[in-house]
C-alpha cells in the first residue's frame, strides 16, 4: 500500500515534468508546427470576426449589387 502511494506520487512528479517539456520543447522554444498552429488559430479567429456565414443567395446579391 505504502509502495503504491509512493509510486503514484513519483509518477505524478514525472508527468508534471514531462508535460512541461512537451508543451514548450526541451529548449523552451516553440516548434515550427506549434508556431503554425498558433498562427492558423489567429487567422481562424480573424476569419470568424470579419466573415459572416454566407449562402449562395447572399453571394449572388453581393455580386449583382
Amino acid at each position, binding site marked *: 500500500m505504502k509502495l503504491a502511494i*509512493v509510486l503514484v506520487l513519483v509518477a505524478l512528479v514525472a508527468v508534471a515534468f514531462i508535460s512541461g517539456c512537451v508543451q514548450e520543447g526541451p529548449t523552451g522554444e516553440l516548434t515550427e508546427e506549434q508556431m503554425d498552429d498558433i498562427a492558423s488559430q489567429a487567422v481562424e479567429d480573424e476569419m470568424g470576426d470579419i466573415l459572416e456565414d454566407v449562402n449562395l443567395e447572399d453571394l449572388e446579391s453581393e455580386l449583382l449589387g
Partner: protein
Amino acid sequence: MKKLFVLTIALVFVAILVVQQSGAQQVNARIWTRGAFGNGIAISQSDSMDFELIRIGVAGVKITMDENETIRKIGILHFGEDKYRLRNAVIGNGSVTADIYYNASQVGSLALDAYVKGDREIWAGTLTLNGENYNAYVIHASKILRPVEKARRIHEYCKNNPLRCRAVMKAVGNIICDPEAENVTCRDKIKTFCESNPDDRRCKALRLAYCRTHLEDSTCRAEIRGVCENNATENACDVLGEVYNRNIEKNPQVVRKAPRWLITVRNRILSPQAAA
C-alpha cells in the same frame, strides 16, 4: 515519518508545477499583414456547373515569445465543408499565392490577384485542389481597424523613419513632437495622441505614409482607396494605381468597369504627359 515522506513528495510535485507555470513563456499571436480574407466561389474550369462555396483567410501572423518575434505567413481555406491549411503563403502587393495542405500532404495550390470593383476588392485567380482546376472569386471582407491598431502602425513608421515621420507631420501642420530628437518618448507620445485622435490630419497623413510602403496589406490598400475616391490627385493613389494596373494588364477586360478614380489614375500612369 511516513506522513512526512508523502508530504515531501506532494510538495515537490506542487513546486514543479509552480516553477513550470512561472517559467512558462508568454506567447502572443497577432495578425500583422492582412492578405486575402473573404467568402467566394470556386468554379471548375472543365465544368462551369461544378462549383463550390469557398472561404479564405491568408495573413502574416506575428508571434511574440518573450523577446523573440517571428512572422508566419499562413492561411485557412474552407472549400465547401472541407477545411485546408495554406502554407508557403506569399502575400504580395495585391496578390496571394499559397500551397494547400490537408494534414501533412499538399493537395493543391492557389494564386489570386486583387481587382477593384466599386469600392471593394475582389480576389480572382485559379485554384487547384485534388487534381481539379478551378477559377476562384472571393469578395474581400475589409477589416475596420481599431484606433489602437492604427496607432501601432504610426508608431512603427516613426520608429523606422524618424526623419520622414517628422516631415510628414510638418507637411500638414505642427509636429506632435520631434521623433528624431525625443526618440522613444516621442514615438509613444505620437502613438497615444493618434490612438485618441485617429482623425487628426497628422495621424491620417502618418497612416497614409505607412501604407504607401505596405501595399501588401489589404487594410492599407483600403485606406489609400478611401483617400483616392475623394481625391485621385493624391500621390499615394499613383502608387496604389500601379499595384492594380499590374493585375489589370494580365486581364485588361477587368478595367471595363473599374471605378472612376482608378481610371483617372491609370490614365495618368499610362500617359503621364497627356495627364499633365
